[in-house]
């Protein structure tokens, strides 16, 4: 029997209301394995508030607080202040927000929390659109993607603008820890959660979160798509410590072509060869930029 490579303990209950094959559900399961039961998760309006609480149940064995969509950063700052006032020193405070609630609506609150040096972990699970309300584009939707508000019809050919660089915005606040995580790589995912848990101060985790209905692919391919995203340089895995040192945590040698990742998803089905070639060039440039930032620089 193979040894377990991630903790056996579960703090997410089955019976939750996520779609079959939901990347965000696996992300939560892995996250809580790393954080343990002395955790309070604070969520804005997002897929996960619906997933977690089919009334009168909860899918989390930890504490759970619902808050308004723009308030994740403020909520976890307040929870930390309350825990301090009550003398509760062993609590981990976690904000768990989608990309819309982070990159768009909650950006001011995230910035405030980072700037106040709140001792908490902010998790952005990134399914690259407002999925809970039915696939509207967010600032984190990648260029070219179909959504209901960036349709493929007439003059519209998917989202024209590139994805917002939330990690760049977060890094400019110099948090004690920031990392990108992907549930397709559970061991790397858990190592980063555990590293974040051992630190104090503002910490940020950007979690890749494939969405079968929103990205238009068959639910059994969630893990495969996550792997392709990282190995093609679309979602590189790296971490940044308090000293600003950036380490790439999965190199995997030469990058895979992005076409395999794009062709697997209905939201990109309309893209032409030339458009995919342009995305390939952008992914390559982004990867090379990361390599230059990485310490120690590669030989």
């Amino acid at each position, binding site marked *: *029997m*193979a040894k*377990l*490579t*991630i903790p*056996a303990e*579960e703090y*997410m*209950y*089955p*019976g*939750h*209301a*996520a*779609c*079959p*094959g*939901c*990347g965000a*559900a*696996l992300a939560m*399961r892995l996250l809580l394995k790393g954080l343990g039961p002395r955790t309070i998760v604070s969520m804005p309006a997002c897929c996960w508030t*619906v997933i*977690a*609480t*089919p*009334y*009168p*149940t*909860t*899918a989390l*064995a930890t504490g*759970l607080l619902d808050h308004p969509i723009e308030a994740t950063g403020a909520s976890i700052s307040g929870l930390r202040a309350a825990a301090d006032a009550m003398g509760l020193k062993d609590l981990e405070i976690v904000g768990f927000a989608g990309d819309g609630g982070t990159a768009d609506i909650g950006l001011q609150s995230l910035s405030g929390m980072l700037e106040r040096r709140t001792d908490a972990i902010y998790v952005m699970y990134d399914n690259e659109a407002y*999925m*809970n*309300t*039915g*696939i509207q584009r967010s600032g984190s939707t990648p260029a070219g993607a179909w959504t209901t508000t960036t349709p493929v019809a007439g003059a519209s050919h998917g989202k024209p603008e590139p994805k917002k660089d939330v990690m760049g915005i977060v890094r400019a606040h110099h948090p004690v820890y920031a990392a990108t995580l992907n*549930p397709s790589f*559970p061991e790397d995912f858990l190592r980063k959660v555990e590293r974040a848990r051992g630190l104090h101060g503002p910490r940020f985790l950007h979690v890749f979160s494939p969405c*079968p*209905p929103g990205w238009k692919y*068959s*639910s*059994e*391919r*969630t*893990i*495969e798509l996550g792997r392709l995203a990282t190995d093609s340089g679309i979602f590189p895995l790296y971490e940044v410590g308090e000293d600003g040192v950036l380490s790439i945590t999965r190199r995997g040698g030469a990058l895979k072509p992005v076409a395999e990742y794009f062709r697997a998803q209905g939201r990109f089905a309309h893209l032409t060869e030339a458009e995919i070639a342009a995305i390939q060039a952008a992914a390559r440039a982004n990867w090379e930029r990361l390599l230059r930032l990485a310490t120690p620089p590669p030989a």
Partner: protein
Amino acid sequence: MLEVRFHGRGGQGAVLASELLAHAAFLDGKWPQSFPFFGVERRGAPVTAYVRIDDRPIALRTSITVPDVVVVLETGLLRTVPVTDGLREGGLLLVNSALPPELIEVPIPVRTATVDATGIARARGLGSPTMPIVNTAMLGALARATGVVSLDAVRGSIVHVPAKPRENREAAADGFAAVRSGEGRHLPVARRAERAPPLPEGPIAAVPSSTLVTSSWRTLRPVIRLEKCTRCNFCWKYCPDDAIELDPSGFPVIREAHCKGCGICAAECPPKTIEMVLDAGARGGWGVR
């Protein structure tokens, strides 16, 4: 005025069915309206849609709580959703089932009609074998069982469907021909509380979600051939539903109440010992003893 409530699952076409019915009524010279319940957008989760049909303009804009007709696109919903709630006396329950109406368990005495819309959709090649699109066969059956719209109007409405308009029109005619009417088997069952209990002081949600059953969402279920299992635990590791546990010797066991049939375990299993097979629920057997 006639009020129709559709119950289906996300992805089955209940909302489109309500739009087609309204369009058909319009073609018959009536004043229709149709709209879905704005709930959570979840593939496989219960979905509700409404249609009103009248001979004159309709000013009402509310959801339908006292329907004349309830259309159920999947029998499993009879067990998990209170579909007959508010059904008007003398109303009609139309269920997608291969069984005769007398074998459909209903919580109140009600006129019941059945049609094997799943079988019709499969025969006409609508949707995939695992996710048949049953809505047009159900509309044909509805036209016959209620007379509220003509079959011609239903067929006329099936123009702007996403795929296979001809096959969908044929499915509507099949449903029209095959529907059977009768009386459901009245079997009072333990019902959900009529009203939500008052909010408790303190934690609002203290019951684990593992008390809920989510496997009724699935059309496929995983079957593990344990003799080929290497106990690598990949299936367990990647399950987004925590629906696989490992027994003391490290073999995976599916939690049948919670597995939604996403197929990740089968896709990620290195020796490919997991096969996804059609679940009984997908054949319309769910909810009928």
